[in-house]
């Protein structure tokens, strides 16, 4: 997969948005595309810090410029209410943007949603399988909605059932499927009509770890065969492991956009050391901040997090500093900056908050 740090080239962009913006007038319509925070009576969603106060305060997505190239796995990473789902909703014609433009596979999704739908495959957060049909029929009819003949649809369904290891379930009703199998069937269905872009909205939310890993594997394989994927997630490891490029979103805006490594390099430190000790964490942080090579030391619920630069010997130096200040260190962990570090640095808060 080619990595495009500076965005896809003109000809190559499968998704292109410019100044895309969504303000919900009232309650959003039902459905998985509605941002969790935008319910009536709920807190206003997405007020970017320092935003123009004259603008309405509840832009769910604001000033979104996105270019995704053919063959990428592109991730939108952010907490609930960041605007990820609204973004996917707009790109998949389900949410009508307030302003701005969005093109998928060269089709304007606002001006010609029916044509755009031919180019997109979508796996929503909720199970939208057709409960009145069997597993195989779900695929067959999906194929027919997208213009396949009955014969083509049957052949393609059987092939996908094989590939997705669902053949032995083909005649059962979809209500009997486990969460993991249902998710697999939804992915199979979403690629049945060979979409230009596959949209996965929180694809592994609620799945057990093993099922999650197997779905990751599936997404990688699809991508290896050329499938462009845009996924949303609030799992750091998922974004890190799957995505070629990532946009970190919060309050409806993109805060940073780069490869996972590029994002991690943007952190002010090359090493993050977490120190746990008895006594006052705030005082320990103040003490550790004086050690050589420390950029920043901060008390967190997990211990004192120390951002450091300049390689060798940092742990002994920190230990000595802690001991000098009279602290009895019980645990030290050393790590490279993670996407979590990046997120905290960008937003001042934990992704899990």
């Amino acid at each position, binding site marked *: 997969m080619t990595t495009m740090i500076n965005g896809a080239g003109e000809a190559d962009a499968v998704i292109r948005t410019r100044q895309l913006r969504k303000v919900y007038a009232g309650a959003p*319509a*039902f459905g998985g*595309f509605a941002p969790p925070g935008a319910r009536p009576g709920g807190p206003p969603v997405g007020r970017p810090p320092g935003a123009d106060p004259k603008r309405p305060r509840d832009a769910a997505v604001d000033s979104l410029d996105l270019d995704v190239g053919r063959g990428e796995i592109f991730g939108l990473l952010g907490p609930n209410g960041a605007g990820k789902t609204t973004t996917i909703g707009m790109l998949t014609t*389900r949410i009508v943007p307030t302003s701005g433009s969005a093109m998928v596979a060269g089709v304007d999704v606002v001006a010609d949603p*029916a*044509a755009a739908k031919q180019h997109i495959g979508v796996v929503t957060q909720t199970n939208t399988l057709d*409960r009145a049909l069997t597993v195989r*029929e779900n695929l067959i009819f999906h194929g027919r909605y*997208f213009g396949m003949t009955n014969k083509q649809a049957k052949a393609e369904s059987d092939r996908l059932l094989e590939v997705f290891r669902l053949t032995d379930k083909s005649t059962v009703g979809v209500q009997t499927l486990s969460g993991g199998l249902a998710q697999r069937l939804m992915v199979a269905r979403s690629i049945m009509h060979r979409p230009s872009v596959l949209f996965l909205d929180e694809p592994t939310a609620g799945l057990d770890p093993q099922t999650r890993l197997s779905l990751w594997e599936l997404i990688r394989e699809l991508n290896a065969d050329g499938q462009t994927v845009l996924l949303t997630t609030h799992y750091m490891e998922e974004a890190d492991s799957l995505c070629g490029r990532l946009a970190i979103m919060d309050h409806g805006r993109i805060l940073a956009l780069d490869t996972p490594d590029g994002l991690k390099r943007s952190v002010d430190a090359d090493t993050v050391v977490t120190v746990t000790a008895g006594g006052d964490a705030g005082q320990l942080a103040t003490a550790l901040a004086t050690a050589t090579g420390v950029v920043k030391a901060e008390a967190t619920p997990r211990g004192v997090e120390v951002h450091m630069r300049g390689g060798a010997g940092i742990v002994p130096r920190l230990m000595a500093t802690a001991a000098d200040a009279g602290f009895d260190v019980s645990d030290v962990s050393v790590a490279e900056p993670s996407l979590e570090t990046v997120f905290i640095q960008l937003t001042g808060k934990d992704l899990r908050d």
Partner: protein
Amino acid sequence: MAAITITAPPTGPTQATAKAAFLALLARDLTVLRKEFKMFLARTVMQPLLLMFVFTYVFPKIGQGVGGGAGAARFSTLLVGGVIASTMIFQGIQAVALPLVQDFGFTREIEDRVLAPLPVSAIALEKVVAGGVQALVAGLLVFPMGLFIPATAIDLHINYPLLAAVMILGAFMSASLGLFVGTRVEPRQVPLIFGLLVIPMTFLGAVYYPWQSLEPLRWLQILVLANPLVYLSEGMRSSLTTGVPHMAWPVVLLVLAGAGALLLRVGVAGFRRRVLS
């Protein structure tokens, strides 16, 4: 997995794509109808069967015939049209409104259908066509009951072209009503559909009596003109009988078509509001 080849989708004229999608959605609904035909029969046939049985068989047999003597025969005759009409309306609501209420309320299956490559309004229209077919089938199922259940002779003079026009427009109006109701009702309000809509519509829908016989209650006679079932019942009678007073058929056809078009328009707008934000 290497067998998954990603090629550009077959792009044809959008209109052809939309038409194929429309027909496929229709095929899906008919497949489901076929799979659940027993349930369809059970929910369709029971009410008209009991209505016909009690009013046109039991009552005359136990000497409690409505109208008494020759009046009983006349009653049986006029009831046939009314029962078919009410069955169709009821089916339109059951076939279109109830699944939509569920879809919008909690299953959200409709989200997948909405992603099919056709305009959202066409998806709503497809629901009406599929519901109309079901209303039509339900009406035709009730027909034989009118012929075989009554204890007294019934006197049908069928005007087939008019009957076809009334039933088709009636089915369209019933399904459009279903769409309208389905886009406006929340799941917890479903019991109200029956209590506040279906039951009053049926009792005040000229099902058990010709509309003209309401003459002595002029206010009621005028009030029930707002009930579309009145026109369908009257239309059925005008195409099935000669001896029973009924509205002029052009009025019936005009109102059925007009009400159907209006309900469809409002229903499609409601559908768009529910699936797009």
